[in-house]
């Protein structure tokens, strides 16, 4: 029987929600990878909390439905325990640009091999429409009925400044493009960051705006950090400007954090001996090998 990779859980996203696009595109990418020989058992999805995170209920693969803002540390633990796993984070913009921002910067800094998909609807969906760090200046949400007083973060610029080795943007109404970027992210060794402009049909429907302002990158050289930086700064998530979709930056020469974590666990016998040695050495019964603390 062919697995559809969709669980029987009832889908409760709103009609028109961009999350459907991410769910189905990711499913397709995973199936494609399976055809290419990547076992799905070796894939793990980690989600935060928010509308986006329901994808953990819907996608029929291993998943850790974590807490608000914390996809990355969970995913990091999984990856360091088992560097052979493919680990995907599906996070929200409130989730990972507000509550959990520090983890995001550290994942980029470490260049840990994760695929980071941010469902960036630029609003807190599940808690009914407050501003997030990528909402435009003057956004009127339920916690800021008079409009926000702060400019948004530019997550692509932040990721470039933090050391991410793949930095991309996609859009839920550009399905083929989205599929390509997700596949590229999964194939990338290192921290692959993908900001997906995701339509929130209920609280911040930017379909018209995005349709008008987005364009597909072509001909850019993703190994050129300076060009990437220039593209990243084109649109500041607030002021009208062309919005590039695609991979701004990709580099493969950087050290990958999890490379240092491939050691196999000791057997009980080995461990017994190691502990024995640590004890004996403290009583001078073994030549000092490891320096004592």
């Amino acid at each position, binding site marked *: 029987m062919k697995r559809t990779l969709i669980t029987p859980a009832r889908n409760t996203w709103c009609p028109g929600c961009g999350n459907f696009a991410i769910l189905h595109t990711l499913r397709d990418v995973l199936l494609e990878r399976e055809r290419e020989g990547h076992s799905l058992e070796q894939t793990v999805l980690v989600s935060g909390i928010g509308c986006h995170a329901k994808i953990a209920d819907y996608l029929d693969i*291993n998943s850790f*439905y974590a807490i608000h803002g914390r996809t990355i540390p969970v995913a990091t*633990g999984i990856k360091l*325990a088992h560097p052979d796993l493919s680990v995907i984070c599906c996070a929200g913009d409130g989730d990972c640009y507000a509550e959990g921002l520090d983890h995001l910067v550290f994942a980029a800094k470490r260049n840990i091999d994760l695929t980071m998909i941010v469902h960036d609807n630029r609003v807190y969906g599940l808690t009914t429409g407050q501003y997030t760090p990528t909402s435009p200046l003057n956004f009127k949400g339920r916690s800021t009925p008079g409009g926000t007083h702060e400019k948004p973060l530019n997550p692509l610029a932040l990721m470039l400044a933090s050391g991410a080795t793949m930095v991309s943007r996609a859009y839920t109404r550009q399905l083929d493009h989205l599929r390509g970027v997700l596949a590229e992210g999964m194939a990338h060794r290192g921290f692959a960051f993908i900001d997906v402009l995701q339509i929130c049909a209920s609280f911040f429907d930017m379909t018209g705006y995005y349709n008008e302002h987005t364009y597909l990158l072509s001909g850019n050289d993703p190994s050129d950090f300076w060009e990437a930086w220039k593209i990243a700064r084109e649109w500041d998530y607030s002021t009208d400007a062309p919005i590039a979709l695609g991979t701004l930056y990709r580099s493969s020469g950087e050290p990958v954090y999890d490379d240092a974590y491939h050691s196999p666990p*000791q057997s009980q016998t080995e461990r017994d001996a190691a*502990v024995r040695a640590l004890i004996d050495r403290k009583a001078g019964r073994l030549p000092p090998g*490891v320096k004592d603390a």
Partner: protein
Amino acid sequence: MKDFSVLIGGKAGEGINRAGFIIGRILARMGYRIAMYYDYPSLIRGGHNFAIIRAIPDTAVAAHHTTVDCILALDQNTVLLHGARKTRDTVVIANSDAVKDETIGVPIQTIAREEGGLPIMANAGLIGAFCGAFGISWDHAAGVLREEMPRDVEINLAIARRGFDAVPRNATLPAGKSLEMPLFTGNEAIGLGLLQAGLDAYVAYPMTPSSGILHYLAETAPETGLKVVHPESEIAVMLMAQGFAYAGSRTAVGTSGGGFCLMTEGLSMAGMSEVPVVVVLSQRPGPSTGVPTYSAQGDLGFVLSAGQGEFPRFVCAPGTVEQAFEWSGRALNLSWKYQVPSFVLVDKALSEGIYSFDDANAGRIRKEPLPAPDPARPYRRYADAPDGISALLTVPFPGSVIKVNSYAHDEDGLTTESPETIAWLTEKRMRKLPVMVREIDRPDAVVVAGNPDAATAVLAWGATSGICSEVAAMLDLRMVQPLVLSPFPQSAFSGACAGTDRIVAVEENATGQLARLAAAHGIPVDNQILRYDGRPFSIEELAGRLAEVLS
């Protein structure tokens, strides 16, 4: 001289902790058992650090006296601040380059310089002088020094020798009969116990007094294959640990109160997701930043109920290095067996104190295998079970999709809002409790020492139980130490307290947290001796306080 105490003091940065440890080892190799208290303020250079090493041949030791037999003074402050610890017989050996007017002066700084050593090597001179003064043979001393100062060993030995030769022999410490016992800090013993029980990964953000575990496990990782991670924050620590566990690595974390606060959200996630994790929490005086390098027992109530919502947890509170070794291992097994968070709750006194480790009599815990799921049925992460415990598989597992979830969920780990499933899941969690109680409510969950038949009992937990044992034995009292605090070992505790007509709780906090717990379990405490200045009791102080209360 059957019960010998030496104090060494100087400035932070002068290696007092290390020198105290080496003196401990010299005595340990003579067959003594050792307890070293290390006192230091929160600064890196200067100030005043001191260590009191108490040593008794062949006999367990946990606490220190008000007075000492020898003072080794690297600086003037040591002499000034510890005058009250001197008796008529106390031998004071001082660094005469920095200290005026003391019985025995040795110019150790000059010596160190003359021998071409670094300033910090001066303390080798003081160690040498100590050995000389107490009739410890040079060969014996040099043997230990060679092991403990492998870098520039010849210079260190030359400095020590000059110290050794510079002082007259004052007394001869008799040797004990025992083989040398290794000396460990509580932190190291915890690390070792976790390793012994099959730890795969340790994740921590530095925080006094728990950092020693991180340092020890990181340092020994090349030998143990342990994965050690120091990430960006305690929030990351707690979540990473659960990522590790989900992917099959037995993992522990370590912190102190402030860092633990940041772990409570993740702790609650462990409660709901049933992903195991061991939390070592080493207490220091709070609230908040408090007094980072001193000791306290103020976080028991917090640990017992931390995290929103209700879920079972296992909390043990070892008080000795042997208990720390054994119960850290048990905590690891228990967490994985019951898929609940386990705590090893200790305090600075144990974490950073140095003690002889009675290896032969320490419980050696090995990794317990977990029951496999029924291979005939599709795997369900939260499959219902009479005892609430679903078989635990971890990713990757061929043919299985493994979903864990912080939301209320069904047997497959899919989110639910159905009242029946929510109630079922709550009950599944709670059904573990009676099984956990059956497992831990055994006599070894509560230690009885002193005179087990005495009608007056001293109740203690954590490091304080060491001194309480000794004082109880002195005063012919019973000492009761619950090693397990959650789930509460009701019958073991009642058994341990049976026949008492008076219970005096001794705690290092201001409200009597163990006393409250005991009362909640039907054993009210009659008197409380509380201390909350970060300092340990000396034997005489505690005996005096007890006498007062009991008079």
